[in-house]
């Protein structure tokens, strides 16, 4: 590792591709690892599919027996299914933040991490969508929230946040998939043109749609990409806002607060960047992508985690302040119970992981150490899962009637479903890193100094402008 980051000769900013790689080197670095199968990949893939097998088992038993196999009880009617749903959909949000919001803000460093993050978004949203599907108990009726004409003449209640959620999350999934695919088209063409076998050429060729890098095409393509980024930005904010409405619109102390939308969005970005680091720190080392995903990239992500983690910490504090300031005894009890009641341990795990552990990122040495980044990213993932657990369960288990208060514990099937959802996620991610370019080739090439039409190299500077 260089003691100082390399600087761009034209802009004077830190270079985004280190070690003076050429365009061809970049293609090789990204496309090379996915053209040869590796033993390590098989190892991860097999473990992931085994975890996926646990999911199949858990779902099979669930569909046979019903939601009674979960730990749900009378006051706690919303358990791990909603916790896992919010956890996964939140993880997805960092991918959209990187691909859309950072694009609009002209943060060029996003180019080497956006492809893998968008893939993470799509797979996380698939995992998230699974939970509403299975928690209804009779998943074959899941199409009922859709506005389909039917013989009963019944239509959905469009005033319900749960219905808004159906539209928000499914739109979010569709738009993320479109955005991801549009970004992939030029890189699929690269894979097609490099293919050594006919099968690969045809397989990549079909999805590359005959892309040939025409400037007349790039013109519409770049406009489409900009517009999609502009559409995805308000979309991603709306999605987690609406997810938070699932809670905030209800009348339950602990849920019924106006801070929820911004607090949920900040938490989503925080947890998503945690997962991006969990995935990319090993990936960059195993695929030898250190010149493309540089330490500077990791450092930037650590800074975003620090900012959003602190915002989440502020929200935790503000919730307590408002509970006290409101003068409402039910609200005050809900929060005292959250921090010091039966689930005190979950609350303090959440605070330690989400508020305290990211504060280590004030130190530059921590921000630039891949191992520490990886460890803290795991804490962030754990902390954000517990945040959703704390919000859901502590608000429900002591409801309005003390005689119905109960303690909620998950069963082995709750655990199996969560572990299995990770299996689904990692299986999809393994397939992604095996067959698709993990870094957006065309986008990375476009931000290299040599890509600038005014870059003349060291010797031929004529200062001519077009």
């Amino acid at each position, binding site marked *: 590792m260089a003691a100082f980051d390399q600087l761009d000769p034209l802009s004077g900013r830190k270079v985004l591709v280190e070690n003076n790689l050429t365009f*061809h080197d970049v293609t090789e670095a990204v496309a090379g690892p996915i053209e040869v199968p590796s033993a390590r990949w098989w190892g991860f893939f097999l473990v992931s599919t085994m975890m996926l097998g646990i999911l199949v088992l858990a779902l099979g038993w669930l569909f046979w027996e019903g939601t009674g196999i979960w730990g749900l009880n009378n006051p706690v009617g919303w358990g791990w299914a909603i916790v896992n749903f919010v956890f996964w959909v939140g993880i997805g949000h960092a991918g959209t933040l990187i691909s859309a919001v950072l694009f609009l803000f002209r943060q060029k460093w996003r180019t080497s991490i956006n492809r893998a993050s968008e893939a993470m978004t799509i797979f996380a949203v698939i995992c998230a969508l699974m939970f509403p599907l299975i928690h209804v108990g009779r998943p074959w009726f899941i199409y009922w929230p859709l506005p389909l004409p039917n013989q009963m003449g019944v*239509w959905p209640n*469009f005033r319900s946040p749960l219905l808004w959620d159906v*539209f928000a999350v499914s739109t979010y999934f569709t738009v993320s998939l479109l955005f991801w695919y549009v970004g992939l088209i030029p890189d699929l063409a690269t894979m097609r043109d490099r293919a050594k076998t006919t099968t690969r050429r045809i397989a990549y060729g079909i999805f590359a*749609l005959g892309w*040939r890098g*025409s400037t007349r095409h790039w013109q519409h393509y770049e406009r489409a990409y900009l517009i999609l980024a502009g559409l995805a930005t308000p979309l991603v904010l709306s999605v987690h806002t609406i997810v938070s409405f699932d809670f905030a619109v209800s009348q339950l102390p602990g849920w019924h607060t106006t801070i929820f939308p911004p607090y949920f969005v900040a938490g989503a970005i925080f947890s998503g960047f945690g997962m991006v680091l969990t995935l990319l720190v090993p990936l960059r080392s195993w695929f030898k992508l250190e010149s493309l995903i540089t330490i500077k990239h990791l450092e930037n992500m650590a800074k975003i985690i620090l900012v959003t983690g602190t915002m989440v910490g502020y929200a935790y504090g503000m919730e307590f302040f408002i509970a006290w300031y409101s003068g409402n005894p039910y609200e005050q009890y809900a929060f005292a119970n959250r921090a010091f009641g039966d689930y005190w341990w979950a609350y303090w795990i959440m605070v330690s992981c989400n508020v305290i552990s990211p504060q280590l990122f004030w130190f530059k040495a921590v921000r630039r150490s891949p191992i520490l980044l990886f460890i803290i990213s795991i804490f962030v993932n754990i902390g954000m899962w517990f945040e959703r657990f704390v919000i859901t369960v502590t608000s429900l288990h002591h409801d309005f009637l003390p005689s119905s208060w109960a303690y909620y514990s998950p069963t082995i099937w709750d655990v199996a479903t969560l572990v299995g959802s990770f299996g689904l996620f990692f299986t999809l991610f393994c397939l992604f890193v095996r067959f698709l370019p993990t870094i957006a080739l065309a986008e990375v090439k476009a931000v290299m100094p040599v890509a600038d039409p005014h870059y003349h*190299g060291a010797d031929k500077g004529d200062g001519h402008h077009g």
Partner: protein
Amino acid sequence: MDKYSKKKVFGLLAEYDTAHAIFHACEKVRDAGYQKWDSYTPFPVHNLDKAMGLKPSLLGWIVFAAGMTGASCGMLLQWWTATIEYPVIIAAKPYFSYQAFVPVTFELGVLFASFGAVLGMLGLNKLPQWYHSCFKSERFARVTDDRFFICVEAADPKYDVERTRQLLQGTGAIHIEEVED
């Protein structure tokens, strides 16, 4: 190839090795007054469309129309189901409680606009088009890796094998070849 068979020429394909070279080459071809020609690059070279003299993309209008269609459909659907087809009083609100209909209206607007952006982009680019004459050139495979190309098509009224070749040679091309249709 049999010299009596009439091979149809698609155009002249010139190859460049830097973004700088193709940028200035495009300016020269543009200034020479060619119309039916194109440049091919592994990534979008900044302002190359201006160097080629292309008009700005009209995609924005397509997306706007698609987005407005989606949003209108969303609001109409909710208005119609809530007031005419299935009027039910919920939480003592009016049948047409439009404030609660904003999220679904917004989501459907974004959904339609995104499809408009992607399908509009593919339509304007006439993609998918799995066959193109340039793919016949073996060197053209590097267009998705590290090389830059200009192809002046034989269909251009100003096209002349010798003069066009001279023009391209004067732009610093590292290789020029004729591609068949």
